[in-house]
């Protein structure tokens, strides 16, 4: 049985140098369609792709990704903060329904806890400098 899913992959810095996507194709016979890619060696990376193939191979491929340290979101969308654009005003803080934003007490900088984000998108339109981006 074939499956095809849109997934969001977060690469920790130590994984961005590895040929992860190539191995998905070679070792697990999966095909991929890149929707968004932002991967630079040594930095945290983001890949959004549609991954397709045989169910058994798909599961093995996902298992391989988890073992390499890649974090996977099965959501069809993702909210990412453009760090260069964020002015740390804090307008997002009391809007987020899940409390994904908080202020670092010492610096009053805005922290974004991606794990708490449920991709409602409220912050995306409400962010004054438009630093929050919704990716499909």
């Amino acid at each position, binding site marked *: 049985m074939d499956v095809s899913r849109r997934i969001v992959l977060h690469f920790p810095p130590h994984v961005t140098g590895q040929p992860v996507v190539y191995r998905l194709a070679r070792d697990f016979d999966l095909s991929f369609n890149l929707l968004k890619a932002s991967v630079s060696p040594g930095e945290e990376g983001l890949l959004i792709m549609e991954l397709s193939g045989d169910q058994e191979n798909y599961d093995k491929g996902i298992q391989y990704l988890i073992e390499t340290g890649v974090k996977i979101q099965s959501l069809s969308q993702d909210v990412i903060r453009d760090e260069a654009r964020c*002015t*740390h*005003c804090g*307008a997002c*803080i*009391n809007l987020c329904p899940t409390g994904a934003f908080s202020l670092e007490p010492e*610096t*009053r900088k805005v922290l974004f806890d991606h794990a708490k984000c449920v991709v409602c998108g409220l912050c995306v339109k409400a962010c*004054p*400098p438009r630093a929050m981006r919704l990716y499909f």
Partner: protein
Amino acid sequence: MPKTIAEINEKVKRGKAVVVTAEEVIDIAREKGISKAAEEIDVVTTGTFSPMCSSGVFLNVGHSKPRIKLGGGKVYLNDVPAYAGLAAVDVFLGANALPDDDPRNKFYPGEFNYGGGHIIEELAAGKDVRLLATAYGTDCYPRKKLETWINLKDINNAILFNVRNACQNYEVGVNLSDRMIYTYMGVLKPKLGNANYCTAGQISPLLNDPYYRTIGIGTKVFLGGGVGYVAWHGTQHNPNVLRTDKGVPKEPAGTLALIGDLKQMRPEWLVGTSMLGYGCTLTVGIGIPIPILSEEILSYALVTDSEIFAPIIDYSEAYPQMKSEILGEVSYAGLKSGHIEVQGKDVPTASLSSYPKALEIASILKDWIQGGKFLLTELVAPLPGAESGITLKPLRERPIVE
């Protein structure tokens, strides 16, 4: 004690001036006492980084061959209309200007993703901007159409001239209605779902000089990452308001009109900004030095968040209907704690003004002065104080009978 600006500038030139930020000075004075601190400290630097709608830029784009008279014609910059009621090639672009085809609030709430403020940021970033103009043609300016790229580095002048910046204190916005509202104070959730404020509090320029003793016409400032000057008191400058014992206004009061050369400025300190359901604006970075000429001037600069109070206003009814009802007063210490109490309800707070960026500006200005490259200015004239009798007048509408 007391010192003069000339004496402080002598120390600045020798790299000997003692400069601290408006945040640092609080602890220093607590430790050393006001007298000793006033003796030692020469300058306190302040900062603010907030959306400031009455901002804009005058551009002189240079004369084309053959010449065109933009004045009286129509001018667009990246599809955003610029004001062309000036001489042949001078135009003005305001931060709130929107493309003609922006849907505004037809699809409510409008997103306002791009407007004049964004173009000012792009110009400062050195990006090309598309100029499209039509004119009526004259004997000396025969051309009727112009389409070209322009770039900040090529045009003759780009003068940022903001007629109202750096408001001295501001309101706290809440929403008593039962639907979400979209305001210049941000998205306000129904039934007191949140409360938004918009000043840097204890490091904000005019809150550190509440009676305008040192900040006035001619004061040299950090503006958008470059150097600017206070040109005048800003529009809606309103010194006659309720104040605390230490002179801090308890509602919006003084404002500044600031001017500076956009060519020196940086996009990180002039950020195109979109307020959902409201419009476009520009977030402006401003830093102002306060020369510590006396113990009294220092005492004002020691203001802390717990000594600054803001009125809480309902933006669903009182604000739009020009009713002067306030729901209470709250200190900035309260606002910055993350929660305030309004009508017995615990309400989470948020700021539209970036404290970390304001502090960064105060620190950059401190470095400029310590490095000897930013000298302080004598006042050309003071800002109008309470004695001026200036008050904020509402519009008295008069029927037009034809």
